[in-house]
């Protein structure tokens, strides 16, 4: 178990290391001089100022040296300063990251409590009208883009009915963006749970459980649910990463003050240090979640633990 987890953690660290390399190269991937582009929108910048910024970002050195400088600062917890405003990037990100995590976790919660029971019910009533109806609903949910669902929810619940605020950052403001992000994922979970449970229900060991005289409810709860849950757990990890990505769109629709909205602003303003910090933070969150999911997997499936 511990060996299994320690290899996962080592792989995660490697992934983050690879991200740091990509982040350093990123600034050169855009055609043209990055500093010129950064200051293209602001007037009255002197060539001396531009030269100064270039030196402070280390862009006058070779790429390996740039990487070494970047890593040296990173290991001291320094992600640089924003071009606009000159605040430390780390502070800006840490200030907003909790908002995004709250949003993603709420959406995950909604996806799980809605999606998994629906999938289980559909599997339980496989082939019935209930099953067909639920799966049509699920396909509709998957097909609907975030921005469209978000706008529709906004229109009905905030503008027409006036039940919930349009935008801002309070507990009530969380409901609409979390629903937007959660519902489409609920649909994905519902479909996966259904197919996974149906798969398990047809396995020999479920027949064995019935042959022992166990009641159906216990067979489902003890023998089917846990085995059928494994692929869903894998999916949760992947979906969490997608949800973090989806948060970028949703945060902008609902003006939710998270890192996603910050990133979009930074991209428009070519604020490279912020973009770099955002990508790095994102990869850390995704890797940590993935390791957590692997640990959960090992708890659920004894066959993994040995590996």
């Amino acid at each position, binding site marked *: 178990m511990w*060996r*299994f987890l320690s*290899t996962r953690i*080592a*792989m995660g660290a490697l992934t983050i290391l690879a991200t740091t390399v990509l982040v350093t190269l990123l600034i050169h991937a855009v055609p043209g001089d990055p500093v010129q582009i950064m200051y293209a929108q602001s007037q009255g910048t002197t060539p001396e100022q531009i030269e100064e910024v270039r030196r402070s970002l280390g862009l006058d050195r070779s790429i390996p040296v740039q990487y070494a400088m970047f890593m040296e600062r990173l290991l001291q917890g320094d992600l640089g300063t924003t071009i606009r405003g000159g605040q430390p990037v780390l502070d800006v990100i840490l200030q907003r990251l909790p908002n995004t995590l709250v949003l993603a976790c709420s959406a995950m919660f909604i996806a799980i409590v809605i999606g998994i029971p629906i999938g289980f019910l559909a599997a339980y009533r496989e082939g019935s009208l209930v099953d067909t109806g639920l799966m049509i609903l699920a396909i509709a949910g998957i097909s609907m883009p975030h921005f469209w669902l978000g706008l529709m929810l906004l229109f009905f619940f905030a503008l027409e009915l006036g039940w919930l605020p349009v935008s801002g950052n309070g507990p009530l403001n969380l409901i609409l963006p979390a629903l937007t992000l959660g519902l489409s994922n609920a649909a994905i979970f519902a479909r996966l749970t259904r197919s996974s449970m149906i798969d398990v229900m047809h*396995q*020999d*060991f*479920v*027949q*064995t*459980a*019935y*042959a*022992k*005289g*166990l*009641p159906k409810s*216990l067979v489902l709860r*003890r*023998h089917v649910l*846990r*085995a059928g849950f494994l692929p869903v757990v894998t999916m949760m990890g992947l979906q969490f990463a997608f949800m973090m990505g989806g948060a970028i769109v949703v945060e902008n629709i609902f003006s939710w003050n998270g890192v996603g909205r910050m990133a979009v602003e930074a991209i428009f303003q070519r604020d490279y240090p912020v973009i770099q910090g955002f990508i790095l933070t994102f990869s850390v969150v995704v890797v940590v979640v993935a390791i957590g999911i692997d640990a959960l997997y090992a708890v*659920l*499936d*004894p*066959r993994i633990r040995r*590996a």
Partner: protein
Amino acid sequence: MSALLAVRDLSVTLRSGGEARMLAQDVSFDVARGQILSIVGESGSGKSMTAKALMGLLPPNATVSGEAWFRGANLLAKGSAPCRGTGIGLIFQEPMTALTPVLTIGTQLTEAMVVLGLADPAEARRRAIAMLDRVGIPAPDRRMRQYPHELSGGMRQRVMIAMMMLLEPEILIADEPTTALDVTVQAQILDLLRDIVRDTRIGLILITHDMGVVAETAQDVLVMKAGRTIEAGPVARIFTAPSAPYTRALLDAVPRLDRPGSSAGMVAGAAAGKTLLSAGHVSKTFHARAGLFASGLATRALDDVSLDIRQGETLALVGESGSGKSTLGRVITRLTDADHGAVTLGEENLLTLRGKSLRAARRKIQMIFQDPYASLDPRQRIGTSIAEPIAIHTTLSRAERQDRVGGLLARVGLTPEMAARYPHEFSGGQRQRIAIARALAAGPVLIVADEPTSALDVSIQAQILDLLADLKREEGLTMLFISHDLAVVRQIADRVAVMRQGRILELGPTEAVWTAARHPYTRALIDAAPVPDPTRPRGVRRPVSGDFAIGALREAALGHWVAT
């Protein structure tokens, strides 16, 4: 003695896509206390459906009619509570998948006792440990905490039997309980079932396709075919004086371990043949990777194996699972690379060939696989599948290739017109014929057949073995025949090599190995195999255990080598 279970006119109909099929029709039988009734049949005979109907485990699209009287109630009546567990227990064929992988053995053994109110958790645990001990599982305390994947197939089947016996049923249905197991383990499980019936006086319904298993265990036999009862009676009469032609055909089709095979007469000629292919000191170790950084367990699949295959002979590789027999076949066909050693065909060492010369050598050695459902491309017409090796290895024109395919199909007992059909239009036996035609298409000098009849019904198996014997006699085909089934090997092979844990323990002419096996492991294997003769004393087979000599081969008699 009155019957414990009386089944009358049981019929099962399966409805799918507006079409209704009778899977079992008017099946009637009685099971008494302490009786072992065997239901025998080939695939599609309805034997498993009958068992599922009694358990109330039929799929939802199946309907059942008839009566099954047990404890004064009709099990098949609508709304009758099924007697699963405490009344009738069921054991499945595949112990690898019949236990829940995510729950401990202990949980699975005790849960039904607790839920059904037979015992409180502490008492259930105590009984479970005692039962594990009873079914012959060592260190039962420790097993309770283990998961199914930590046990071998034989152990799992014992756990399965223990699980059902803990509920103290009066009837136990065992659906092919030993089919997925090695022959020595099979013998132990059959012994265990027989002991349980003797000690507890339950009634046992043993469903099987294996006449040997029937002869070794059953008192009464019910022969089924296509859902109908063909014949029923005491085991001795069924074997000595079967009244139905189908029963007779079924018995005739069973390869007999206790009688020499048809090909035995040709041994003399084959023994004189030159060496065609020679494997020398071949070793192969598999490393199971545990992770990116961790190196896993190493398994020695082949450990310094040497043997010669002679022109025109059928050499059999016999062994249980994990013996390395399939790995040797795969090394010779270069589907797996060996770590050390050489395999020489003519002047060439096959193991060092690359590129063009490897492709040329591959033409000379063709393979037939076990499962004809998996070895043919379902999206390709069979004519295309057979023509592929011809197109690769020759310069024949399209029309000439078609001629050749037609000829090959006719040769394996099919018709040339069938070339335009797809694999799903053929039965298992026909597919294996197609696979043989494909192997012959390239004009090989050696055919490696890996368990070519194991997935087939016994009557089909007999036909395929006849075909292979014909090809050998008429075309001088040389074959490496890999099998776990000793009876099949005795029927078809000229020489036999017995393998265990990656080493050859005995190698010699088939009849010499059978009548005068010199290695104790060979003797144990032969003893363990069930023989379709109910007059043989039962339960005299000794389990295979302990260490065997695995040293270098020494010639004990002319051409008969034994590990020392």
